[in-house]
């Protein structure tokens, strides 16, 4: 290969490149810090309430109700109770008290009163604490209710948990009139947890900047000394094949909607229609458990559809281009990559109906929406890794295509697309977190519907899932690509 002199590379002298890199890095880091600052400093949490069991005995002057629970937030702001409808409630206010469970005789931490009329019958009522309980996360508190009568509360049995802004809580002993009672109050905690992530933000950013700087300097030295470098190789491949990649993506896109009357409109309609179908089928089942069910459904459907499209097309990328691969040389990864990118065009178009549905269903766009390219970037890298892996495997084992169809169906059911996360059994939650698609969908839902950035752990999950899959896919592809022509 001859050394190509690139005029634009010559104009960009090293100090200029470093300055541009630093400026760009700072701008991106500052933008990112601005977006995530609040969400990485404090995060609103609420526990899931136990599901309703039987109604507890009436709250009377004689029989006070007390319930111990473990505080689930750094700052406990409110408690929710499920009041049952009863005969005309008394005028007398309900007196509530929070005290340490370990020292029953000490003075309560908080006492306050709520008028019985303020309790919404047969629904969870939010009781804001007169002042937040701070710094008692993990400690066991006792909530005591006293009243003149006329009110009763729902008791609960099992606890439902979900990850979408919910944390686990332990509910302890329930006493009615001083005696232990079966079950528990239907109690939900609401509060704020403090995160320390922002403290590490700038040190980590500085380390990343330094790593990038080192890479640029190293690459520059390799360029000057004519030594091989992965970056320089990648640059040369990019320069030569970027146009081909673009042409292949445009080709796929054109051919896809050729001879269809509505053409590109299908990219809009498809997710909308699928959302409608799922909505009709599942709305009675899951509607009440999920905020903004249409947007919840649609975000899941769009992301899973992209994954399914990209991997199905990627799977056939090598075998389907056999005629070309055995006749013309080009880097073989271009084929699966072009398929993943052409499906991505579709994904981007289908974001438009998602935004419309979100706006129509009353979601106010938040600055967290700016993180969408990042979330889709993770997803894209993950899909490239999967496509590399599958396309290579397909060359040697043609039954992968049938197996993959079944796998996709299983994967679809294992991902909370149309069902709420709260129905996942607590014991399996850890396993669910290992599902990369769950992480990507969770990420997208929290920045769109939730309006908050996920906590750093989700970023880490996504980063590992995407780069790890890419590394595995690339390693397998690289090792086997020279043998492709012999099996096609």
């Amino acid at each position, binding site marked *: 290969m001859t050394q190509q002199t690139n005029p634009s590379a010559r104009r960009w002298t090293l100090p200029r490149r470093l300055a541009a890199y630093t400026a760009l890095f700072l701008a991106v880091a500052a933008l990112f810090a601005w977006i995530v600052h609040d969400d990485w400093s404090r995060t609103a949490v609420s526990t899931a309430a136990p599901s309703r069991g039987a109604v507890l005995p009436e709250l009377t002057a004689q029989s006070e109700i007390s319930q111990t629970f473990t505080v689930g937030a750094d700052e406990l702001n409110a408690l929710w109770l499920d009041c049952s409808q009863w005969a005309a409630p008394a005028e007398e206010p309900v007196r509530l008290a929070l005290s340490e469970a370990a020292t029953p005789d000490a003075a309560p931490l908080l006492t306050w009163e709520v008028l019985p009329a303020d309790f919404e019958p047969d629904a969870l009522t939010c009781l804001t604490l007169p002042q937040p309980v701070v710094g008692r996360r993990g400690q066991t508190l006792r909530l005591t209710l006293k009243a003149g009568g006329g009110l009763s509360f729902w008791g609960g049995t099992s606890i439902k948990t979900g990850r979408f802004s919910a944390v686990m809580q332990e509910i302890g002993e329930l006493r009615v009139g001083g005696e232990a009672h079966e079950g528990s109050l239907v109690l939900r905690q609401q509060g704020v947890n403090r995160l320390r992530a922002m403290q590490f933000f700038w040190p980590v950013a500085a380390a990343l900047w330094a790593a990038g700087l080192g890479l640029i300097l190293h690459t520059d030295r390799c360029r000057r000394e004519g030594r091989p470098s992965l970056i320089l190789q990648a640059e040369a491949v990019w320069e030569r094949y970027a146009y*081909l990649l673009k*042409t292949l993506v445009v080709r796929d896109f054109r051919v896809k909607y050729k001879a269809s009357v509505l053409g590109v409109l299908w990219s809009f309609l498809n997710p909308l229609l699928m959302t409608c179908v799922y909505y009709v089928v599942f709305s009675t089942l899951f509607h009440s458990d999920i905020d903004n069910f249409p947007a919840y459904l649609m975000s899941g459907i769009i992301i899973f559809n992209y994954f399914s499209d990209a991997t199905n097309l990627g799977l056939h990328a090598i075998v389907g281009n056999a005629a*070309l691969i055995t*006749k*013309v040389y080009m880097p073989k990864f271009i084929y699966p990559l072009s398929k993943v990118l052409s499906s991505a065009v579709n994904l981007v178009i289908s974001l438009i109906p998602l935004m419309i549905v979100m706006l129509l269903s009353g979601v106010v766009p938040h600055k967290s929406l700016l993180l969408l390219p990042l979330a889709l970037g993770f997803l894209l890298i993950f899909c490239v890794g999967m496509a590399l892996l599958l396309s290579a495997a397909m060359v040697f084992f043609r039954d992968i295509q049938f197996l993959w169809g079944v796998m996709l169906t299983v994967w679809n059911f294992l991902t909370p697309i149309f069902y709420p996360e709260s129905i996942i059994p607590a014991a399996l939650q850890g396993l669910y977190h290992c599902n990369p698609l769950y992480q990507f969908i969770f990420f997208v839902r929290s920045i769109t519907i939730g309006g908050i950035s996920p906590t750093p752990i989700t970023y880490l999950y996504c980063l590992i899932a995407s780069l790890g899959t890419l590394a595995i896919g690339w390693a397998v592809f690289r090792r086997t690509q020279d043998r492709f022509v012999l099996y096609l």
Partner: protein
Amino acid sequence: MTQVPQPIIQAEDVSMTFRINTSRTNSLKEWFISKAKGKLKYENFAALGHVSFEVMPGEVVGILGRNGAGKSTLLKVISGIYRPTSGKVVTRGRIAPMLELGSGFDYELSGADNIYLNGAILGFDEKFLKARYDEIVAFAELGEFIAQPIKTYSSGMVMRLAFAVATLVEPEILIVDEILSVGDVAFQKKSHDRMMSMMQGGTTVLMVSHNMQQIRELCQRCIWLDHGTVRMDGPAQEVCDAYISYLEGGGT
């Protein structure tokens, strides 16, 4: 750049061995069963053995040999489609392999789109193709049909377009595997002229043909392959004479 001309193609001790999976497994189930039974057998087939030669810029080299002598394998190794089992191939310059014309075409797309698609597959960029576009369309004699999807073309039209794209973009190395008869008599003449002018214009050509007259006419040098090894390498007339007398002698 140095003044001493460097060889444009260098093949050093190139061997190509195919490992043929005799049990022909290409399903997971079969593979596991064969593996478990210990029946996964491979047979080695040496298509090329220790082939070495150099080609200087502008040379037109014909490759001779009987069927199965390794001619096509050699062309694919030089094009970079096969990676040699041992030895190495160095090429300096852009290669246009005309191994099967039109293999990069998408029949749903128009002729115009296919010019860009096929051009990109051959490694050319947009600017270059835009500059040559009119020339390609004119050479292929497609006229208004260029806007139609090529599934509506006759096979002759497809071949003309493919030939036009492959040769008009002026690669440094042209690799030809028996493709010189394209289209009707008039276009055959035109394509022949085009090949001649490319060869005179300095393009390095590596061609396989069974048409000895064509080889004698076009090539200065020939390489005779026999069972994957170079049997003779020299001036075209000499090698052709030797090859023909070998064939007339019954091929021994």
